[in-house]
């Protein structure tokens, strides 16, 4: 950085800080509508301390929670064709992409990183709902393929956190094809004997649910997450009836046998670590299986 950034940036930051109002320090819970102080919210990883409502969380915060600070490396994702259909609705697709990039600082709706959990290599992909609703186009498809391939290279596990409205309409049929593409990548990972853990967060719907999200060796969801194929409004319009209470919520899916567990955000790392201990036995140099530790002593300090 230059002398300019050293001198000028803090001053600008001070200016911004001074204009901060009460509003930005407090967040209203989307569940119980109580006000939460920003430090409390951060400490609880965006889970309401009053009612346990799971609010959205930035992918990098999730990565730190999973791997610990500095315990992971974000990989650069392969480039894809910018606007394969030259799509235009009320706005041009490249303009929508540009806006999303400015807003999130991300190239597309996904982050892929690798690190270790319990000394097992793990590749983690996280969909970012703030980027065009976490929609799956060729970039997300390419990233899932890259993540699965990296996991195979590292003989590691794959963990995907989904959050998506479904396929990206602006990429039309190519978005639909990403369902087959990601499924093929997952199939090859599984054939290599490596575990894939799918974590569904709010919301996980459409083509993402109907492809890699529902194909986990183990399926986990965060409490209250909406998970489904069709949107609730579409279903309501089709059947012209009110939907049952809790419909398409994680707990509802658990009751219907669609998930292995609903786990609060604070427990995800511990659960994933346990699963990987069982599914990925560590071998000694002589090839003998090492005993599974009785508790998560090696997992003592989650970030």
């Amino acid at each position, binding site marked *: 950085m230059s002398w300019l950034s050293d001198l000028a940036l803090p001053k600008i930051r001070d200016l911004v800080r001074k204009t901060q109002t009460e509003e930005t320090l407090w967040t209203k819970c989307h569940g119980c509508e109580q006000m939460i102080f920003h430090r409390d919210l951060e400490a609880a990883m965006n889970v309401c301390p009053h009612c346990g409502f799971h609010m959205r969380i930035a992918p990098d915060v999730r990565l730190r929670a999973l791997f610990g600070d500095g315990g992971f490396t974000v990989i650069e994702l*392969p*480039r*894809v*064709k910018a606007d*394969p*259909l030259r*799509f*235009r*609705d*009320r706005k041009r697709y490249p303009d929508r992409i540009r806006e999303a990039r400015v807003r999130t600082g991300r190239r597309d709706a996904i982050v892929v990183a690798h690190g270790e959990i319990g000394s097992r290599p793990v590749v983690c992909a996280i969909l970012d709902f703030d980027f065009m609703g976490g929609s799956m186009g*060729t970039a997300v*498809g*390419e990233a899932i*393929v890259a993540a699965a391939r990296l996991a195979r290279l590292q003989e590691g596990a794959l963990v995907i956190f989904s959050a998506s409205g479904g*396929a990206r*309409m*602006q*990429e*039309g*049929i*190519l*978005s*639909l*094809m*990403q*369902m*087959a*593409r990601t*499924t*093929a*990548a*997952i*199939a*090859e990972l599984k054939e290599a004997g490596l575990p894939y853990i799918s974590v569904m967060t709010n919301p996980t719907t*459409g*083509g993402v*649910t*109907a*492809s*890699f*999200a*529902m*194909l986990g060796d183990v399926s986990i969801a965060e409490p209250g997450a909406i*998970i*489904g*194929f*069709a*949107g609730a409004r*579409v*279903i309501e319009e*089709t*059947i012209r009836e009110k*939907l*049952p209470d809790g*419909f*398409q919520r994680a707990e*509802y899916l658990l009751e*219907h*046998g*669609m998930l292995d567990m609903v786990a609060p955000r604070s427990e995800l790392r511990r659960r994933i670590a346990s699963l990987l201990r069982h599914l990925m036995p560590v071998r000694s140099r002589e090839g003998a299986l090492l005993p599974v530790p009785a508790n998560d002593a090696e997992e003592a300090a989650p970030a």
Partner: protein
Amino acid sequence: MQHYLDFERPVAELESKIKELRRLSESDGVNIVEEVGRLETKLDRLLVQTYTKLTPWQKTQVARHPERPHTSRYIAQLIEDFVPLAGDRLYGEDHALIAGLGAFDGRSVVVMGHEKGSDTESRVRHNFGMARPEGYRKAARLMRLAGRFGLPVISLVDTSGAYPGVGAEERGQAEAIARSIETCLQIQVPFVSVVIGEGGSGGAIAIAVADRVLMLEHAVYSVISPEGCASILWRGGDQAEAAAAAMKLTASDLVGLEVVDEVVKEPLGGAHRDPAATVAEVGRALARALSGLEERKPGELLRARRDKFMGMGRLG
């Protein structure tokens, strides 16, 4: 009573004129052969004009035409000794996706497809071609059966989409579709899909991850219906025409995007004007595609199928 689409009105008028003239000539003995001939030439020309430059939205309507041949028609005409097979072995039987064993062009195959039905009663029974999880689980079960006995798989795609209902969601519509796609990518037998009408989203691709994907000239295949796309991106379902154009959902668009391998020509005026000829043409294309695939080794087929779908949307 023939069903005419809005843009076919001039065709309808001309055809009714011809019919009227024929009726007159029968009752009055008036010789109007020449006049009828002239009108028929005009009709052919009109059909050519209309059908060579259908807009994507018009194609969508043709693809949904109620008299368009559906899966059961293809099975009746192309498959000998058809043995329908039912049920997913988990919950139920889904009439929206029909399937079974049969002989196609001298070989035994597993054939499956969405069935929309052709009158009110059968449409209701087949749930308008919108399958529930049981349909996709049956499809996956029969793909595995085909794999076990080395039988090629033929799938016919004709659905507006998977059924959006409470029970369908409760029983895992998304899981069933995902698992069906996964099964498509696991079987080691030749696999050909034909989009014969509407290829609607996840409900379509669930059975269309094949070695060769063929598509009828006026069929459509898309990630969402034009109406759905319009209501989300344009905030109005009345913009469906614009959405249809933007989505690139026609057979020629999809060949350009390398999602579809081959376009099967339809008779003049669309499949609904001559179902028998349409089905026969699809049969010839299917026979060619299958014999090409049968020359290849099974492991090689699966590898190529996976590579093909893994490459979709890749840069360069």
